[in-house]
């Protein structure tokens, strides 16, 4: 039920590794971390969701909020996700057209501008 958040930098990119469950109870922590990162000047963010066990619309909303924040600084927010159960909710909500999405972190690092 816990949410884990860990971030590190690779070049000018910031990788935010998210693990565990992202729902209405835990999503505020993810929102706070994204707000902090953008506030500290991290505008090219890759959210690595490889270790996410559960994500619902509250989590989607927080990611959309993060995307809007980085875009206001001409930044980017890309997602790494290779789990069908997570990808499915991005497809149903049409968010696959909104976020740059990658199967692996290496692909995201290679493609993110």
């Amino acid at each position: 039920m816990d949410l884990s958040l860990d971030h590190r930098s690779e070049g000018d990119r910031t990788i935010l590794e998210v693990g565990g469950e992202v729902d209405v109870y835990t999503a505020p922590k993810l929102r706070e971390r994204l707000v902090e990162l953008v506030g500290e000047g991290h505008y090219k963010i890759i959210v690595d969701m490889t270790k996410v066990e559960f994500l619902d619309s509250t989590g989607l909303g927080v990611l959309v909020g993060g995307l809007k924040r980085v875009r206001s600084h001409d930044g980017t927010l890309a997602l790494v996700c290779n789990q069908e159960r997570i990808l499915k909710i991005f497809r149903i909500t049409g968010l696959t057209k909104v976020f740059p999405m990658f199967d692996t972190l290496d692909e995201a690092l290679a493609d993110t501008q």
Partner: protein
Amino acid sequence: MLDVELRLPSDVQYVGLARLVVTVAARQAGMVDERVEDLKIAVSEATTNAIVAHQQYSSSSPVILRFGPTSGGSFEVTIVDAGPGFQPQTPEAAAEKDLSTEGGLGVTLIRGLADDVRFLRGEGMKVHMRFAVGLEAEAG
């Protein structure tokens, strides 16, 4: 017959408990893993909406979930809140949504994941969802 009832305090920390209990019951009823994942998200969405409605309207009543297997290879969940209800929107792709707000995708997900869903407004809001236990009747 929805033979199990779960009464939750209006606190979002209990959404995870609702997911856990309903999905264990669904597995016991023979639901395949892929469908359990659909059910888990839909229950999370509807329970979140119900608890948030109670918080917004300062309701001290519990949110009530009733669930269980039904004839015809389905598993059904009814989630009842005491809020004023809302008019569920027709499904809308996020690319066409106003993304200036962070909410509003929950009902889209419920409609996309459940095989059948009904939103019934009475003294509160009742969301009734049906899921096939197997894969063959999965909603697109």
